């Protein structure tokens, strides 16, 4: 693959993105426009409780290395989608906000102490917390102007936050970087505690 491949692909991707904000196609779910996509995209980003947990998933993946570095950011949106679908179906979930705050605390502590449980345990922890985030997003989805684009927006924003965490997690290979990553984990845990206690 050469640079030209990338340019051609990039141009096509731009067309895809342009199409996402284009007008509706009757008889399909892609009704609505930029507003639905933007609202969905901003939902995880404008909620600091969501942001810190998403970034922590990426950071922890960066510490754990392969295959967790891609498994965790893959498990999260899949579990989130299942919970979001449950919310759409009207299935209640108790303690959503508490679960979201706890996700910041637990995932932040995992990063702070660089804990390395077996992959399946890490996946289970991430998947369990994804349920709370997914339910919170999914509960707002049916009321959205454009539910389909809202869903696309919040899934993409969530994934991009994971990728941001992974990028920061790459600092782990340097000793000073490890200090920075641990510090970020500690800050995330503190933020989660603030959300849990209502201080933030």
């Amino acid at each position, binding site marked *: 693959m050469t640079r030209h*491949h*990338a340019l051609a692909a990039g*141009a096509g991707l731009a067309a895809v993105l342009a199409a996402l904000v284009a007008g509706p196609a*009757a008889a399909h*779910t892609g009704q609505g426009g930029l507003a639905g996509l933007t609202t969905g995209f901003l939902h995880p980003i404008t909620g600091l409780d969501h942001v810190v947990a998403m970034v922590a998933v990426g950071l922890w993946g960066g510490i754990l290395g392969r295959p967790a570095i891609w498994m965790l950011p893959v498990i999260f949106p899949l579990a989130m989608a299942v919970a979001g679908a449950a919310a759409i179906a009207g299935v209640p979930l108790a303690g959503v906000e508490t679960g979201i705050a706890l996700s910041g605390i637990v995932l932040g502590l995992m990063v702070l102490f660089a804990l390395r449980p077996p992959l399946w345990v890490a996946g289970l922890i991430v998947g369990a917390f994804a349920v709370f985030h997914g339910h919170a997003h*999914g509960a707002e989805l049916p009321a959205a102007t454009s539910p389909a684009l809202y*869903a696309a927006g919040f899934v993409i924003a969530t994934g991009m936050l994971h990728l941001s965490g992974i990028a920061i997690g790459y600092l782990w290979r340097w000793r000073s970087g490890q200090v920075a990553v641990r510090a970020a984990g500690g800050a995330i845990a503190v933020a989660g505690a603030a959300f849990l206690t209502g201080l933030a």
Partner: protein
Amino acid sequence: MTLRAAAAAALLSLAAGPAAAHGGLAGGAGFLSGALHPFVATEHLVLLLGLGLLSGQLPPERRGLGFAAVGLGLLAGLAAGRATGLPAGVIAVAILASACLLGGLVALAPRPLGWAVAPVLAALAGLGVGLDTDLAAPGAPASLGRAAGVVAGAYLIVLDAAALAAWAARPLFAIGVRVAGSWIAAIAFLLLALAISRPAT
């Protein structure tokens, strides 16, 4: 045909406008509306993006069969059209379920895939998109131009996603492709939940 050439050809075909000095405006408009249809029908878009990413993850020598299969499936679906009598809601659910599967394979499947997996899924994806596409554009009769446009638009999505996935073969970027696959599966799953909870009227 290389992936680059195919993607560029599909892109150019979309950019081309109707011949101004001739009476081809209706046909050109039909082509353009057809080409845009896979982009604005969200369930088609996620399905074709998933198929493209999966194709791009394959070794280069194994991509061609899938690319051919999606075209054959599309043509068969467009030809059969609504004559199959399948309700549109059923086809949409099948498309979204297929998109979940494709996204899941992109994200989680061990490599390499069995040689028949991608061509079979490509044929089914093309068939689904073809069956779910009305060749009569709103306010216009069915036309071959619109059918050609649908094929061009679908190929543009598949080839571009494949090109991106192939370009991202290096380990760091390959993580991004897997993550993108999980996004497609998640989005498709949510759309599936919406489609089931709010059946099209």
